[in-house]
């Protein structure tokens, strides 16, 4: 049976989140420092569905007219991708700086459009939700 000591919070319990934060920090620094894959692509999704994949090594200028209404212009220059123009109300996506590192993304929430930089041979996003 359990000692009652187990049923009251101890200040030392905070060691656990502290260790976890430290571990996560190390992992994130590692992933940022690790060399980026040579081939990178901008994956553009609307409501989770991939509508285009643009390699970052070639400059591009694409206008996406979304079937649900709305326009986003996605531009690739010098290995970076950005949203140069959109008719959304917030304009958050347009003001977002250009991105180039794997894992970075630009979100246009009103249009449900997401631009994400992925490593070459774009891996499918995993279904992280285990039930």
């Amino acid at each position, binding site marked *: *049976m*359990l000692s009652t*000591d*187990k*049923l*009251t*919070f*101890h200040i*030392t*319990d*905070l*060691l*656990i*989140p502290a260790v*976890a*934060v430290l*571990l*996560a920090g190390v*992992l*994130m620094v590692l*992933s940022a420092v*690790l060399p980026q894959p040579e081939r990178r692509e901008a994956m553009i999704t609307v409501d989770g569905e991939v509508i285009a994949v643009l390699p970052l090594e070639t400059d591009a200028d694409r206008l996406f007219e979304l079937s649900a209404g709305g326009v986003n212009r996605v531009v690739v220059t010098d290995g970076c991708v950005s949203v140069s123009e959109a008719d959304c109300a917030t304009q958050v996506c347009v003001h977002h700086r250009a991105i180039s590192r*794997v*894992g970075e993304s630009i979100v246009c929430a009103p249009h449900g459009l997401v631009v994400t*930089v*992925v*490593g070459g041979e774009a*891996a*499918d*996003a*995993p*279904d*992280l*939700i*285990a*039930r």
Partner: protein
Amino acid sequence: MRKMNVRRLAMYGLLVALAFVFSYIEMLIPFNIGIPGVKLGLGNLVVMVTMCLLRRRDALVVAVTRIVLVGLTFGSPSSMLYALAGGLLSFAVMALLLPAKRISLYGVSMAGGLAHNFGQLAVAVFATQTVRIVWYLPILLVSGIVTGGLIGLAAVLIVRRLPARVTQGI
């Protein structure tokens, strides 16, 4: 074959059923909307309480049975794999920490929640061969700490209130 303790067998049935129902409830409440991997971990609550009331290996039985049952009923082979990775890592960490001095159920539970999230993330990195998923870490970290703390509180309340006779002869 040794004779199986009937009370224990009945208790397994109860606990697995409870964990199963909790997993189902968790799917119904929109707590995890939008953010992958973030969930309350009600199934883990049952595993933790089992660990406190019975033996640790009983908690392992409940944990694995729950994941397999939930996976077969609502999931896919891949979702079961994610759940197993999270569930087993979470169990291992909690089983290790439970006897630790100066660590209460709050700490054990937070460690379990965090281990669950780390385990799932590790499988995701391995399965997709991409490290970009590491960007989920801050969310998984915060959610692991918050939900782990809440589940710890729930476990404390349950263990305090359960009469000792519930586990007599098991």
